[in-house]
């Protein structure tokens, strides 16, 4: 019996109709593709009226297949599958053709775009005829959650879940949780002390009965899928027994080896070879830096071991790999600071009194290396003039195109601290001052009143080459003041570069491990930038905080809580629906060669030794198709991606090749302006 296919071509307002002649596409498909019973176009197919139209057609015309030509299936496939279900048609008998992202948004020539749309729709219709009904599976959700990253976003997510009564594993790469926020002195715009609002959360996480804190550990591997992930966590050897250590701190105090602390103190201060990053660290268990430790380098010392009252030092400790089962994973892996030496014209690393924003945070911090005193690199001279250079590495086509979002407010905060702690004049060199959140603009006004100077212009260079006697011994900030319309040279003593927020160096690797992606600027990609900002394209993997894009503390906290809420919803529901798009083995044809087992990246194929055949565990199978392509006897087939379906799709696509109009519409390729780096 022939199928009855209904084809629905969407205008998407002018999004598609502006570039594709949708009426023509609907007409052509109706006349030229076999078994098409209905072919319509409509302004907005996803609207309730559009959906109703499809539903009524299915019922009144007895449609057995539905094709919608509209946007990307990642946006509305679900919507239309739902429509089919409502009309008692199995949702997997539906197929979507993407004529927006793949046609109208990327084409300029209307005739050519219309041709391309026809082919895609014909392909979808031919494919749909070979679809079969499929039923999604329900699997239970493991209630435990893995949170990766113990900065403020990860802490918030952890606490929300733990307080709701669900178990959480919190993995942190550094010896202590706290993240960048632990390094800050004050937080804008309220100027409350960063540690004072952070450390209570840290200790709550450390003591929470539902939280398993895995500090000094890294996520190694993720397998399985939403509801039932299996993860491997590598616990690095810190050479201190976590159970015996009481956190008394005698080991660090007595350790004779001091090194520059490039992590927590941003290179401005020192720490011992056995250390906790800062006094309020959670956990309080120190770790040994083997590159610095005299024992590991020269087989001498062991002072910490001799002096530890709890006998917790263990030089033979080995790293271990933990295997955990979790239902969902929240990534809160944060950001790293832009390397300011990449702006050699600003002199960082060459001119001693040029600082990065993280260095200056530590300098302002009362618990920091200078005890909160703002001084030059010599450690004693107070500056008379301080320059704060915005957008160092942000909003620069050759470095990072994006705005780092937090630096304007941080610069204002620095301005306030300098004015409060010293008698210095403070200059801000900005492109635009961006203070758009609650109470931020008021803070800007406050600094204007406090007497911070604002010069609008991107700094050309910071140089020690003076031209006049009053410039001698100073750092000169050369800038075009775009409000005055002239060049200015401002002599200062200390320069703070507001370095950009950048994605972590291993963000792409983290994305790969979790089966998600990084965008063009390197940040982890959310499912939808507006409507689904904490989910990702992989179900059960969520992102929050600065790993998803530059963000300040309030925004990170909000996202941490949002991600936790999404996870709570999944746990509360108890089960998760798994797409039935999986492979299956035809036992008759399977020769038992087990090639599929060695290739399956998800460990989803099992071997039945009795029958000597492979069998797919549908709950683990992700439908990647590797086994289907590899199977030498053709025993493996991928539901919803059978050979028949794909060949029919190709046939539909190629049917347009012979169309005579094609050649006539070919235009010479447009000249494209390219700017090479």
């Amino acid at each position, binding site marked *: 019996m022939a199928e009855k296919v209904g084809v629905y071509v969407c205008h998407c307002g002018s999004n598609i109709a502006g570039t594709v002649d949708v009426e023509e596409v609907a007409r052509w498909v109706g006349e030229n593709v076999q078994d098409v019973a209905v072919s319509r176009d409509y302004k907005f197919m996803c609207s309730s009226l559009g959906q109703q139209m499809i539903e009524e057609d299915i019922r009144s015309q007895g449609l057995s297949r539905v094709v919608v030509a509209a946007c990307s299936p990642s946006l509305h496939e679900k919507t239309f599958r739902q429509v089919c279900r409502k009309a008692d048609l199995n949702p997997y008998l539906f197929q979507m053709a993407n004529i927006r992202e793949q046609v109208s948004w990327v084409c300029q020539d209307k005739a050519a775009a219309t041709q391309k749309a026809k082919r895609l729709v014909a392909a979808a219709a031919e494919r749909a005829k070979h679809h079969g009904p499929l039923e999604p599976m329900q699997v239970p959700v493991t209630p435990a959650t893995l949170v990766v990253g113990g900065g403020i976003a990860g802490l918030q997510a952890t606490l929300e879940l733990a307080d709701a009564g669900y178990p959480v594993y919190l993995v942190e790469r550094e010896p202590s949780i706290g993240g960048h926020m632990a390094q800050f002195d004050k937080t804008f715009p309220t100027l409350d002390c960063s540690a004072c609002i952070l450390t209570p959360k840290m200790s709550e996480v450390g003591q929470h009965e539902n939280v398993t804190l895995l500090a000094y550990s890294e996520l190694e591997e993720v397998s399985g899928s939403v509801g039932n992930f299996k993860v491997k966590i590598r616990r690095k050897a810190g050479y201190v027994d976590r159970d015996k250590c009481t956190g008394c701190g005698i080991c660090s105090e007595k350790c004779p080896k001091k090194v520059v602390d490039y992590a927590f103190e941003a290179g401005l201060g020192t720490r011992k070879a056995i250390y906790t990053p800062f006094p309020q660290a959670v956990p309080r268990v120190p770790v040994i830096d083997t590159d610095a430790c005299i024992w590991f380098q020269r087989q001498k010392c062991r002072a910490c071991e001799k002096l530890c009252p709890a006998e917790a030092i263990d030089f033979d400790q080995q790293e271990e790999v933990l295997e955990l089962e979790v239902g969902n994973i929240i990534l809160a892996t944060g950001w790293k600071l832009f390397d300011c030496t990449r702006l*050699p*014209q600003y002199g960082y690393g060459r001119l001693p009194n040029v600082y990065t924003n993280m260095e200056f945070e530590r300098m302002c911090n009362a618990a920091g290396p200078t005890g909160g005193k703002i001084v030059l690199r010599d450690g004693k001279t107070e500056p008379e003039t301080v320059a704060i250079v915005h957008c160092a590495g942000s909003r620069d086509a050759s470095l990072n195109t994006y705005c780092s979002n937090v630096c304007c407010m941080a610069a204002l905060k620095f301005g306030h601290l300098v004015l409060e702690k010293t008698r210095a004049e403070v200059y801000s060199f900005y492109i635009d001052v961006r203070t758009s959140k609650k109470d931020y603009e008021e803070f800007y006004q406050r600094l204007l009143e406090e007497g911070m100077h604002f010069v609008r212009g991107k700094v050309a*260079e910071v*140089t*020690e*080459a003076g*031209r006049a006697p009053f410039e001698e011994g100073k750092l000169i900030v050369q800038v075009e003041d775009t409000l005055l319309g002239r060049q200015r040279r401002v002599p200062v003593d200390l320069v703070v570069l507001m370095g950009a927020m950048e994605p972590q160096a291993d963000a792409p690797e983290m994305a790969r491990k979790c089966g998600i992606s990084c965008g063009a600027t390197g940040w982890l990609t959310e499912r939808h930038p507006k409507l689904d900002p904490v989910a990702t394209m992989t179900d059960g993997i969520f992102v929050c905080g600065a790993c998803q894009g530059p963000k300040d503390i309030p925004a990170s906290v909000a996202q941490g809580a949002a991600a936790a809420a999404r996870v709570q919803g999944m746990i509360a529901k108890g089960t998760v629906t798994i797409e039935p798009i999986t492979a299956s083995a035809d036992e008759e044809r399977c020769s038992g060669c087990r090639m599929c087992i060695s290739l399956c990246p998800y460990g989803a194929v099992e071997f039945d030794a009795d029958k000597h055949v492979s069998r797919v565990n549908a709950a683990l199978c992700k439908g990647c198709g590797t086994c289907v392509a590899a199977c030498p006897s053709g025993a493996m087939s991928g539901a919803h991606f059978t050979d028949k379906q794909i060949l029919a799709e190709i046939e539909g696509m190629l049917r347009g090749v012979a169309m005579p109009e094609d050649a006539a519409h070919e235009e010479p390729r447009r*000249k494209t302006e390219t700017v*090479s780096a």
Partner: protein
Amino acid sequence: MKYAYYPGCSLERSSVAYDVSVREVADALGIELVEIDDWNCCGATEYFSQDELVACSVVARNLSLVDPELDQLIASCAACYLNLKKTDRLMVEHPDLNAKVNEALAAGGLSYPAGRVRVRHLLDVIHSDVGEAAIREKVLRPLTHLRVAPYYGCQVVRPFGDFDNPEYPMKLDELFGWLGADVVDYPAKTHCCSGHMTQISEVQAFELIRRLLQSAVDRRADMILCMCPMCQLNLDAYQRRVNGYFKTDFRMPIVFFTQVMGLGLGIAADRLGFGKEIVPAMPVLEDKLGPGALESVA
């Protein structure tokens, strides 16, 4: 290592010292320079603002004359480097311009497929293709105690230069580090030499030149190293006028980097064009590098 070579007009007249020292250094480093046969003007600074199509055609003629066996062209003059590179790039990016330029070339029986020749500055070739190890090996007279201020100027690093940081280049600094010199951190290294401002408004030019000289003096540099004939001329030839105008007493030798590099490679000063400069460099060199510093090292 074999490259096509475009000397340019300055190197035949005002900057003979650059030309002879480039050839000596190239020879010592095993760089074979194949001079373009019958090369013509690069258009200098002015011509491009008069008529871009004609300017590009004039420059493209030089590119079309590059030996078909070779696909890399060395220029040592900053303006020539810029114009050759710019023309090739414009032709690659604008097919219509490319077509017109080739039409003009065809009238002379020539053609140039855009992008065929990679235009490189001599410093780039020395720094990257010869490289640190080979250069360190060839140093016969380490330039120890000689404090040099590396001056890049504008055209080599901006806007088409592609081998060094355009804001704060370091390749010349590094090269002279390998030669054993005491390289001063010269913050004015890319600042303006005043270009042709000497012809338009002398006073403006004098101030720009003064800043460059003063910055080198402040860093106790013995001499400024140039890689552009215009920079060298302005700083050297106008130094006396600058002194007169500002009542200063600059006596800063301004030489081409290849001249001093040649000394480091053991070549005698008289083969490197020393003596052509107006503020004498040789007494300083002898003073810093010791007796016999100007002789050849066998």
